[in-house]
C-alpha cells in the first residue's frame, strides 16, 4: 500500500532484552511524517526518542507494528536492504559530527556515494555541489581537525545531503556547539526545509525544538504531545548561508 506520507508509524513498539528483563523502549506509537515536514523530537532521556530516531533511520526494525519509509515496509527487510535504504533515502547528522579523521571535507562528504557505487569523478562533483550549498566551498581540502565545530557540522550536513535524501535525521546536531553556532546550524536546517527537504530533529533543548514546524514530545516510550509550532525561531531575513 503506497501512501503519500514519507514516514508512517502504525502502533509501533520496540522491546529490548536487557538481561532477563524486557525493556519497552517504545509502545503503540502511531505517527506520520509528510513530505516537507520539519519535526523536532523532544523528551527526557529514556523517553524513547532515540529508539524512534533509530527506527526512522532504518538502523533498527520494530518489534511490533509497522514502519513505512517512503511507502516501503521495513519489517522483514534484510540487513543489506536496510543499508541500501539508508544509503538512498536517508541522511544522518550526529551530535559528534562523526567525520572521518585525517580525511578531507570533500572525501567525507562523498562517503555515502562510495557505497552507492557512484564513480569517483561524479562523487567529487556532487560533493562539491553540496559543500557549496552549506557554504563551505572554500574548505574542501581541509581535514576535520582544521575546521571549527560549526564548520564540521556543516560538512556533516553536506554529507547527509549528498545522496539527495527524502528525509534528514539529526540527532542532537547542536549538542556540541555554542549558542551562536547552534543558531547558525538551525538556520541552515530551516533553509534546507524551505527547499523542501523533510527533517526530523532530536533534541532536549526547548529553544532548538521550537525551530521546527512541529514538535513531538516523548515520555516513557509514548508520544504525549504532537503539535505544530506557530512562531518559528531563528528565522532571520539576513541569510548568511547561501542557498544555491
Amino acid at each position, binding site marked *: 500500500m503506497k501512501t503519500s506520507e514519507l514516514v508512517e508509524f502504525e502502533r509501533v513498539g520496540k522491546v529490548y532484552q536487557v538481561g532477563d528483563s524486557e525493556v519497552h523502549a517504545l509502545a503503540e506509537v502511531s505517527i506520520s511524517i509528510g513530505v516537507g515536514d520539519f519535526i523536532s523530537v523532544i523528551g527526557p532521556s529514556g523517553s524513547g526518542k532515540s529508539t524512534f530516531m*533509530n527506527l526512522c*533511520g532504518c*538502523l*533498527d526494525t520494530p518489534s511490533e507494528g509497522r514502519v513505512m519509509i517512503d511507502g516501503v515496509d521495513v519489517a522483514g527487510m534484510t*540487513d*543489506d536492504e536496510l*543499508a*541500501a535504504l*539508508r*544509503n*538512498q533515502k536517508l541522511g*544522518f547528522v*550526529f551530535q*559528534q559530527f*562523526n567525520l*572521518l*579523521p*585525517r*580525511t578531507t571535507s570533500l572525501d567525507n562528504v562523498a*562517503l*555515502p556515494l*562510495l*557505497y*552507492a*557505487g557512484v564513480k*569517483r569523478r561524479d562523487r567529487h562533483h556532487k560533493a562539491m555541489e553540496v559543500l557549496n550549498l552549506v557554504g563551505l566551498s572554500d574548505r574542501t581540502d581541509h581535514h576535520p581537525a582544521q575546521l571549527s565545530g560549526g564548520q564540521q557540522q556543516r560538512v556533516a550536513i553536506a*554529507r547527509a545531503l549528498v*545522496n539527495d535524501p527524502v528525509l534528514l535525521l539529526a540527532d542532537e546536531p547542536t549538542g556540541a556547539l555554542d549558542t551562536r553556532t547552534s543558531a547558525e546550524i538551525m538556520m541552515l536546517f530551516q533553509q534546507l526545509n524551505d527547499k523542501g527537504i523533510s527533517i526530523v530533529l532530536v533534541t532536549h533543548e526547548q529553544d532548538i525544538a521550537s525551530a521546527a514546524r512541529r514538535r513531538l514530545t516523548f515520555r516513557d516510550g509514548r508520544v504525549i504531545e504532537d503539535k505544530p509550532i506557530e512562531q518559528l525561531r531563528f528565522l532571520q531575513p539576513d541569510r548568511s548561508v547561501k542557498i544555491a
Partner: protein
Amino acid sequence: MNVLESMLVAIIALRTNLMRSLLTMLGIIIGVAAVITMVAMGSGAQKEVDQQIAALGTNLFMVTRGYSRDHGARKAAGTRVRLTEDDARMLKEQIPEIVAAAPTMRGSVQAVIGNTNWATTVQGIDNDYIVARNWVVREGREFDPREVRTGAKVVLLGHTVAEELFGESNVIGQTIRLNNVPFRITGVLSQKGQTMNGQDQDDVVMVPLATARGRLIGHSQSVPKAVHVIMVSVAEAGMMDDVEQQMTQLLRQRHRIRADQEDTFRIRNMSEMVETRAETSRVFNMLLAAVASVSLVVGGIGIMNIMLVSVTERTREIGLRRAVGARSRDILTQFLVEAVTLCTLGGAVGVLLAVLISYGTAEVTGWPVALQWEVIVLAVVFSAAIGVFFGFYPARKAANQNPIEALRYE
C-alpha cells in the same frame, strides 16, 4: 563498492596510521625475508652438492688397496700392492653391468712452461677414467688407444693448470715439461670445481697410465702393473649393490683370498656417500624453511592483534559507515583488504630485503646462494594468505558491529 575502491580506502586508512602500519608490517617483512633467504641459502648449498654429484661421475665405485694382515699385525693400507691393471680389465670383462673400469695412479709433479711453473697432481689414466668420472675434454682431444698402450708423452691439462700456466693463449699442441720430461698437450679438460672436501679437482694433469708409471711416478718391482685406485662406473643406480657383490667375489678369487681372510681391497660406493650428504642437506633446508615460516606466522599474529585494536578504535567510524549505507559485507571487505594490503606490502618489502641479504651474504661470505622465483612468488602469495587468515577474525568482528551501538561507542 569494488575491490579497487576498497583498496584505496584501505591504503588511506593505513597511511593515516603510518608508524603503526610500518611496525605491524615489520613482522611480515622479517618473516618473508627469513623464509626467502633461508631457502635461497639452502638451495645454494643444495645446488653445490648436486654439482658435486654430477662432477663425481655416475654410479661410481672406488676400489682401493686395502689392509693386509701379517700374522695378526695389521699393516698400513696398500702395504702389499694388490690392485693391478689386469684387475680392472677383468672386472670390466666379467661383469657386463660395468660401463667403465679405470685403473689409475696418482703422484705429484712440477709442471714447467717457459719461465713459469706450477706444482700439481698427475693422474695416470686410460680413456675409461674420462668416462667413469664424467670428465669432458673442452679443447683438443682425448688420448688415442695407441698413445695409451705405448705410453706416449702426451698430456691433458686440468682447467686450473691451463689457466695458471697459459692464461688465455692456445695450448693445444704445445710442449710442457713435467718433472723435466717434455709432454705434448693434446687437450684441456673442462672445469669441475671443488670436491666436498674443498680440493680443486681441476688442479691436475692427466697422462696415459703407462707413461705415468714409467716416467713420473715409478712402479713397484714386484708388481709392475700395480695401480692405486680403480674407478668403476655402473650402468644403472639400481645395479650398484649387485655389482658390488660380484666385484668382491671376483677380486677375492683373483687375489686368492681364503674364506677366513679379510678382503685386501676396499670397495667404496662414492655415489651413495654423496647422496647421503645431499639428503642431509635437503632435510636441513626443510628445517630452516620451517623455522623461518614460524616467524611468518608470528608476523601474522601481529597483524591480527593490530587489526583488532584498529577495529575497536574505529568503532564509531564503522557505525557511521553503516549508517550512510555500507553493508556489513563492505565493512568486512574494508578491514580484510587492509590486513591483506599490510601483509602483501610487507611481503614485497620482505622480498627486497631477502634479495639484499642473500646477495650481501653471498658477497661477504662466499656462500652459494640461489634465489628462486618460485619461492619469491610463493612467499608473497603466502603472506597475502596470512593477511586473509589473520585478518578475517578482526574484519568479521567489525562487520558484525551493531550500527546503533557502534555510533554510540565512546
